[in-house]
C-alpha cells in the first residue's frame, strides 16, 4: 500500500513499490532473476499500463483498474491456520487427480507430492530456483517476454512464487494434475503467480488450472504460466476461470513446442469481472500440433478478452483455434487471433474461428483475426461470426413441445458444445458440461463445496 506518497502515474507508483521491496522480493533467488527483474522494470516503465491506445489491449483498458492503489501486495506468503483440503474439495465425481493448491499466488506448503514418479519435480517455483537453478534458468523467461507486453513485464517484476513442474523424458503421468488457485484475503489484493512447466521428451501430462475466489474482496490476479514441450511430448492444459465480479484476472499462457509435440489447451471462462487471456504458442520444431480452444460466458458488466497468437516458425506444424463467446446483459468480449507463418514454414496448417452469440442488444463483441503469412505452401483459414440465437431453430424446437426458455438453453448449450468436446478428460468434460448448463440457466455455477462461499 502506498504510504501517503503521491505519484504522478500508476507506473511510477508500481516502480517505486518494487524498489522499496526489492530485497524482500529478491531474497533467496539466483542472480539471473535480478537481471530478469531489472529488464522487466525497464520494459514496464517504457510501455506503461495498457490503455485504449495500446493496440494489443484495445478491448481491455486497464488504466482504471491500476489507478486504484488500495490493493495490498503480499511479498510474503499468506499464513495458514487451516488445512486446505478441509476447506476446499473439488466435487467432480469420480475425478481422481493429483490435487495441488495455490493461495494468493503462493504454492501451498501442505501440497502432497509423494505419489509422483521418480525423477519428477513438483514444488514451488522459489524452491526450484534454489534447488535446481540451472534447470530453471534455462527455461524461465524464454517464452514470456517482458519486452513484448507490460502485463508480462509486471509479472516478471514481482514474480516470487508459483508451481514448478518438471516431467522427465518418457514419463507418462496418467492422473491429471489439478492446480487450484485460490484467492482469499481480508483486504483487496494484488496477486502475482508465476508457473513453469517442462515436459520432457516423449512425456505426457494433463494439467488443469482452476481459478477461484473465496472472499468478497477485490483482486487483481496476474498469473503467468510458461510451458516447454520437448520433442514428442504431449500436454493437455485446461483452465476453468470461476471468479467473482470483483476480480480482474490477467492470465498468461506461453507455450514453446518442439518437434512432434502435441498440445491441447482449453480455457473455460465461466465467471469473472475482467478476464484477459494472453495465450501464445511458438512452434520451435517441425510437425508439432496445437489445438487452442476457449469458451467464455459473460453477463452483467463483465469483460472477457482472449488474445491468441500462434507462431509457425517451422515446417509441417498444425494449429487450430476455436473460441466462442456467449454474451448476456451489458457484457463485452474481445477476440484477437494471430497466426504468423514464417518464411520456410512450409506445409503449415493453421485454422482459426471465433463465434459469438449476443443475447441482448447491449452486449458487445469485438473480433479481430490477424494473419501474417510469409510463405505460399500453407493451408490457412479464419472465420468470425457474431449473431443472435437462431430463431428458426428456436421455433423448430418449440413446435416439438419444448418451451422457449428450455429451447434457448438447448441452443446455447449446443453452441458451446464444440469447444467442450475437445476436453479429453471425460469426468472433467462432464463436470464442465454441468457447470455450463447451470451458468446458462443463470444459477451460480459453484463447482466446489467450499465453506467460504461468496456471491459477488
Amino acid at each position, binding site marked *: 500500500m502506498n504510504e501517503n506518497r503521491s505519484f504522478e502515474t500508476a507506473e511510477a507508483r508500481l516502480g517505486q513499490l518494487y524498489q522499496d521491496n526489492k530485497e524482500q522480493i529478491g531474497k533467496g533467488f539466483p542472480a539471473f532473476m535480478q537481471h530478469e527483474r531489472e529488464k522487466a522494470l525497464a520494459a514496464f516503465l517504457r510501455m506503461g499500463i495498457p490503455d485504449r491506445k495500446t493496440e494489443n489491449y484495445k478491448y481491455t483498458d486497464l488504466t482504471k483498474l491500476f489507478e486504484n492503489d488500495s490493493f495490498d501486495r503480499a511479498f510474503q506468503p499468506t499464513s495458514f491456520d487451516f488445512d486446505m483440503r478441509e476447506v476446499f474439495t473439488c466435487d467432480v465425481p469420480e475425478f481422481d487427480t493429483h490435487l495441488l493448491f495455490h493461495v494468493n499466488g503462493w504454492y501451498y506448503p501442505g501440497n502432497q507430492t509423494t505419489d509422483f514418479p521418480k525423477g519428477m519435480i513438483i514444488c514451488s517455483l522459489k524452491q526450484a530456483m534454489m534447488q535446481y537453478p540451472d534447470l530453471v534458468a534455462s527455461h524461465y523467461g524464454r517464452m514470456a517476454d517482458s519486452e513484448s507486453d507490460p502485463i508480462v513485464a509486471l509479472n516478471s517484476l514481482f514474480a516470487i512464487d508459483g508451481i514448478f513442474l518438471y516431467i522427465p523424458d518418457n514419463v507418462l503421468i496418467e492422473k491429471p494434475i489439478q492446480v487450484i488457485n485460490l484467492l482469499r484475503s481480508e483486504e483487496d489484493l494484488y496477486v502475482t503467480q508465476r508457473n513453469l512447466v517442462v515436459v520432457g521428451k516423449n512425456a505426457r501430462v494433463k494439467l488443469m488450472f482452476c481459478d477461484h475466489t473465496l472472499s468478497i474482496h477485490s483482486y487483481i490476479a496476474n498469473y503467468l504460466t510458461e510451458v516447454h514441450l520437448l520433442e514428442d511430448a504431449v500436454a493437455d492444459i485446461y483452465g476453468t476461470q470461476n471468479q467473482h465480479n470483483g476480480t480482474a484476472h490477467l492470465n498468461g499462457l506461453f507455450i514453446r513446442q518442439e518437434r512432434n509435440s502435441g498440445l491441447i489447451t482449453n480455457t473455460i471462462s465461466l465467471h469473472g469481472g475482467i478476464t484477459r487471456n494472453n495465450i501464445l504458442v511458438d512452434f520451435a520444431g517441425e510437425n508439432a500440433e496445437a489445438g487452442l480452444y476457449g469458451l467464455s460466458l459473460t453477463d452483467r458488466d463483465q469483460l472477457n478478452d482472449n488474445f491468441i497468437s500462434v507462431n509457425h516458425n517451422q515446417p509441417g506444424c498444425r494449429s487450430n483455434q476455436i473460441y466462442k463467446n456467449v454474451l448476456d446483459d451489458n457484457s463485452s468480449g474481445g477476440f484477437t487471433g494471430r497466426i504468423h507463418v514464417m518464411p520456410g514454414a512450409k506445409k503449415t496448417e493453421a485454422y482459426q474461428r471465433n463465434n459469438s452469440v449476443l443475447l441482448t442488444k447491449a452486449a458487445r463483441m469485438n473480433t479481430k483475426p490477424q494473419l501474417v503469412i510469409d510463405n505460399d505452401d500453407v493451408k490457412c483459414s479464419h472465420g468470425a461470426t457474431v449473431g443472435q440465437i*437462431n430463431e428458426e431453430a428456436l421455433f423448430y*424446437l*418449440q*413446435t416439438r*413441445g*419444448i*418451451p422457449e426458455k428450455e429451447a434457448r438453453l438447448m441452443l446455447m448449450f449446443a453452441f458451446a458444445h464444440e469447444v467442450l468436446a475437445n476436453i479429453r478428460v471425460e469426468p472433467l468434460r462432464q463436470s464442465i458440461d454441468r457447470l455450463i448448463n447451470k451458468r446458462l440457466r443463470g444459477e451460480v455455477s459453484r463447482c466446489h463445496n467450499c465453506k467460504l462461499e461468496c456471491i459477488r
Partner: protein
Amino acid sequence: MLIIKDLHAKVEGKEILRGINLTINAGEVHAIMGPNGSGKSTLANVLAGNTSFEVTKGEVTFNGRDLLAMPADVRAKEGLFLSFQYPVEIPGVSMINFLKTAVNESRKYHQLKELSAGDFLKLMREKKELVQIDSQLTNRSVNEGFSGGEKKKNEIFQMAMLEPKLAILDETDSGLDIDALRIVANGVNLLKRPENATIVVTHYQRLLDYIVPDVVHVLYKGQIVKTAGKDLVLELEEKGYDWIKKELGE
C-alpha cells in the same frame, strides 16, 4: 377438432391470409393445394405458432380451445404437429436429447411420469422401425448433414414419437424421390387413427396418390376458393391451376 374462422395474417406488412374458413373433424384427411405463393405454408406456420407471422383477424379453436392464445410449445403439447417443408439443422443438439426433452415435456404437461432412459430408448426403437428411419440418424445432431429425404423421414419419425392429434404436413413431398415418398406416405398412413386428423399441404398431386384425402381445398391468394372430394386432385392435375383462375374470372 380444428375450426378456423375468417383468419387473416400478414408477414412484413403484407397480408398473406385473407379470410380462411376451414373445419376439420377427427378421422379426416384434408389436402390443401394451390399455386406457389397462395399462402399454404403461411397457414401451416400460423397454425403452428410461428411468431414471424402476425394474425390480424379471425379465430382458431383446437379441440374447443383458443389455439391462437397458446405459445408454439403448448400447441404442440395439445397435440398439433407441423412437419416442416425445410426442417432446420441444429448442430450440437443430439437427436436423442432433443426427442427425450420433447417427449418428456409433453408427458409433464399431461401430468404423466417422465419416461425412464430405458423406456424412452424402447419407444424410439419401435417408432424407428415403424417409419423405417436409419438407426444411425438418431445418433447425430438434429437434421445435421441429413439428406433431403432423411430430413423428411425424420419429421415423420418425430411425428410418430409425439403422436399428435392433428398433423400438418407442409410440402412433405418436396425434394423426395419416389422410394422416399412411399416410405414417408406409408409412415403417415400407419400413424392414422380414427381420432386423429391430417392436413396435407402440397403443390402436386404425387403425395396424394399415397395419402388419400377425404376433402381437397384449393387455396388461392390467401383464401380457400374451392372445396371438393378427392376427385378434385385429378381435375387439378389435368387442368392446372389456371383453370381455377379462369373460374374466378381472372
